[in-house]
């Protein structure tokens, strides 16, 4: 729910980092927090258990700068990844403007990724939001680990794409981050599909964190035009 205040010329947008437990959502925010100048970010709030598992959410406000004379501020939220916290996870999605799905690349976490993605679709549709129509980016985290699934498998399982029905948009669009692949493409069946933009990351080292944030922020800002 982007909020535009014409009096103070401010735009506030809400981004939510979603994904399975221990996938690196909080780590993404922590990296942004440590790298962004203290002048352009607020305090980071973490509602976590004693063992540092997210209980309700993490929150970090970041000022991006001025566009067309409007000060743009993004509010970054994470959700608790653990399955049994669904009630609080759903609350955080209220009024969301853009979503980052942080997937855990490890082979043994594939099922947890799929379950969390399904849960995201379910929770969004309960609010009447359509995930295929709002800014949505996928991040394949922990790419440095030896037991990582190949990107091809992760894309097939988590980001297979949705149907593109608008003829104006039915044109092959190369994927800027995975050369040789396409964001919008036609299947051998003749059906056109579009995938969410995806990034590889090693959030614990900061790799891919800002690239992901940039992608989703750009998509959100473009919806305001």
């Amino acid at each position, binding site marked *: *729910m*982007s*909020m*535009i*205040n*014409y*009096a*103070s010329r401010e*735009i*506030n947008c*809400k981004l939510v980092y979603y994904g399975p437990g221990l996938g690196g959502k909080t780590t993404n925010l922590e990296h942004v927090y440590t790298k962004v100048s203290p002048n352009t970010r*607020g*305090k980071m*709030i973490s*509602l976590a258990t004693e063992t540092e598992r997210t209980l*309700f*959410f993490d*929150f970090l*406000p970041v000022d*991006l*700068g*001025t*566009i*067309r004379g*409007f000060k743009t501020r993004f*509010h970054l*939220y994470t959700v608790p990844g653990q399955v049994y916290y669904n*009630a*609080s996870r759903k*609350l*955080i999605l*209220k*009024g*969301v*403007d853009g979503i980052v799905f942080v997937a855990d690349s490890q082979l043994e976490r594939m099922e947890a990724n799929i379950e969390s993605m399904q849960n995201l679709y379910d929770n*969004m549709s309960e*609010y*009447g*939001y*359509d995930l295929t*129509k*709002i800014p949505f980016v996928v991040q394949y985290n922990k790419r440095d680990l030896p037991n990582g699934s190949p990107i091809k498998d992760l894309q097939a399982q988590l980001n297979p794409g949705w149907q593109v029905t608008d003829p104006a948009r039915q044109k092959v669009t190369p994927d800027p981050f995975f050369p040789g692949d396409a964001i919008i493409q036609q299947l051998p069946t003749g059906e056109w599909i579009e995938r969410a933009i995806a990034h590889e990351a090693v959030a614990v080292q900061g790799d891919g964190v800002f690239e992901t944030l*940039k992608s989703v*922020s*750009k998509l959100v*800002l*473009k*919806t*305001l*035009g």
Partner: protein
Amino acid sequence: MPGASSWSFREEDSKLITGLMDGLLRETSVRSLLLVDRAGQIVANVGEAPQFDTQAFASLTAADFSANDQLAKMIGEHEFSSLFHQGEKESMYLADVARRVILVALFDNRTTLGLVRLKVKATVEELTRVFEEMFTRAGTEAPKIEGFGGKEAEDEIDKLFGD
């Protein structure tokens, strides 16, 4: 953006809202009044400037209200339209406005809960009218900003991200 309801308010809305809040401030002697939307963004603030991080405060307020809404449903209530958190010196009273924003009153022993509750109720009714009018006017369309769809805005966005 389909689904996620966005909204915007003009300068005259802002004046009307802060005018009502100023009135409440005078009538109750609360220290500070904040208006926060349900997604956790601060809309307005009158009275003493809070010494804490207002953005963090707003996000926690929205979460607090949402969590309590769910608790209400569990015990068979539709909602808790107001919440009260009592501290040793400082207390806060939160009230729902039009199901979209939350009015928060921060007060100490210079006033009483009874007075705050009574006066907040009246102001909430007036604010509800203002917000409902704003939401009706805005409709369900996501707000657009003039010039945001153009090439120049896109360049500015790219520049912001160092592309």
